[in-house]
């Protein structure tokens, strides 16, 4: 097994000018959309300063978190499944009979804006602890035009310590994911969110960098009162000035595209989609995804959420 220490280290150099070219297109898209918002939600009445409701159906949209949290005292059970790549066609029924990845977890709403959650994922026997706090709520009048939430996820790799090689320490098992989520509900039909994130692993394998910034753009369009279509696009920022190791570009993570359908009821949410990601846990997806959009490396996935 190769460990990160086997490679020549290079000083980390992170500048705003190196990040801006990657950040700008996504920021411009969101700002353009905000500027052309129909303001259908704006009304001069007693609801003017109330927070908008139903920006998204739930706190999870395909592969990404949304600004939504469970209400205070609500439990959410999550069952998430990612099948194998569709590349073999009927041989394994487009990946359905292939090796799959599964996550089960639950979230609990501590207050209306703050949740905590736990989950475990089959691949790498990951134990996850997560939290989300909504700082701002978009208002009916758009006096606050966006909802903003902070999301954090700590994963613990539970594989045997032999997996981590020499000089094993418990901290080698830890991976971190932090994200700021900015969302806008345009009208009763359409919502969009932009979410920059930062991923860090204490120990990585095979030339993978320890740190990675990424940008996510996700949207949902309601087709009927209970059926919606949605997409996620996640772009890891493979910035040369951030590289710790020479030649680490050979394992640069690939972008992800997810698109699918969502059905929401009072007690359940079902999401069925096609995606490039198979890691389920965001930090593993961001840092290790090698499924390419251009090569058609897509797979089927679904999320089932039960509310109690």
């Amino acid at each position, binding site marked *: 097994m190769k460990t990160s220490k086997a490679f020549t280290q290079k000083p980390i150099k992170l500048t705003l000018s190196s990040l801006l070219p990657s950040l700008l297109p996504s920021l411009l898209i969101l700002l353009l959309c905000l500027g052309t918002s129909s303001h259908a939600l704006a009304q001069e*009445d*007693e609801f003017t300063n*109330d927070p908008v*409701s139903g920006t998204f159906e739930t706190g999870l949209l395909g592969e990404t978190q949304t600004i939504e949290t469970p209400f205070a005292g609500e439990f959410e059970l999550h069952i998430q499944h990612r099948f194998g790549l569709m590349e073999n066609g009927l041989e394994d029924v487009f990946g359905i009979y292939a090796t799959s990845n599964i996550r089960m977890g639950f979230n609990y709403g501590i207050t209306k804006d703050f949740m905590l959650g736990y989950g475990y994922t089959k691949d790498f026997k990951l134990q996850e602890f997560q939290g989300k706090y909504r700082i701002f709520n978009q208002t009916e009048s758009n006096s606050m035009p966006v909802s903003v939430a902070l999301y954090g996820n700590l994963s613990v790799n539970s594989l045997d310590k032999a997996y981590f090689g020499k000089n094993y320490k418990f901290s080698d098992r830890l991976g971190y994911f932090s994200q700021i989520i900015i969302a806008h509900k345009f009208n*009763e039909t359409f919502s969009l969110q932009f979410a920059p994130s930062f991923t860090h692993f204490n120990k990585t394998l095979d030339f993978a960098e320890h740190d990675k910034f990424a940008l996510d753009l996700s949207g949902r369009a309601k087709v009927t*009162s*209970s059926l919606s279509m949605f997409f996620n696009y996640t772009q890891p920022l493979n910035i040369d000035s951030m590289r710790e190791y020479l030649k680490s570009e050979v394992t640069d993570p690939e972008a992800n595209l997810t698109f699918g359908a969502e059905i929401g*009821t009072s007690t359940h949410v079902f999401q069925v989609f096609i995606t490039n990601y198979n890691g389920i846990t965001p930090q593993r997806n961001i840092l290790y995804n090698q499924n390419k959009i251009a090569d058609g490396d897509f797979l089927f996935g679904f999320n089932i959420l039960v509310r109690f």
Partner: protein
Amino acid sequence: MKTIKIFAIITIAIIAFAFVGIQQKKPAAWNIPAEFKNMENPLANDKASINKGKMIYMKHCRSCHGNTGMGDGPKAARLKTFPGDFSCTEFHKFTDGELLYITVKGRDEMPSYQNKIPNKKDRWAVVNYMRALKK
């Protein structure tokens, strides 16, 4: 032969009992606080609010009350109490405030939607949608 006859009788008895068991009782009168009886609906009863109310109704209410409020949703048959006919004159004798109270507070088999519909505007939108179901 005797065993088959006994088995057949038991099967018929179970099926008959199952049909008897789905008889639903009429809902009892609501005890609604006075403050709700005269509460004014601050949301304009227009197309936008009715559409918004319909979206929320279809998510939270239709499984029992049915698509058009006839009390014939997919879960309705399993309820002990008839979920009500929202198109009838008797239902529309309730004031908007009373409908808001019934929707949000609930009782018995009708769950409370205080947490699931936290937004005041959404609650009044559901009231406006139920008003639109009048024949």
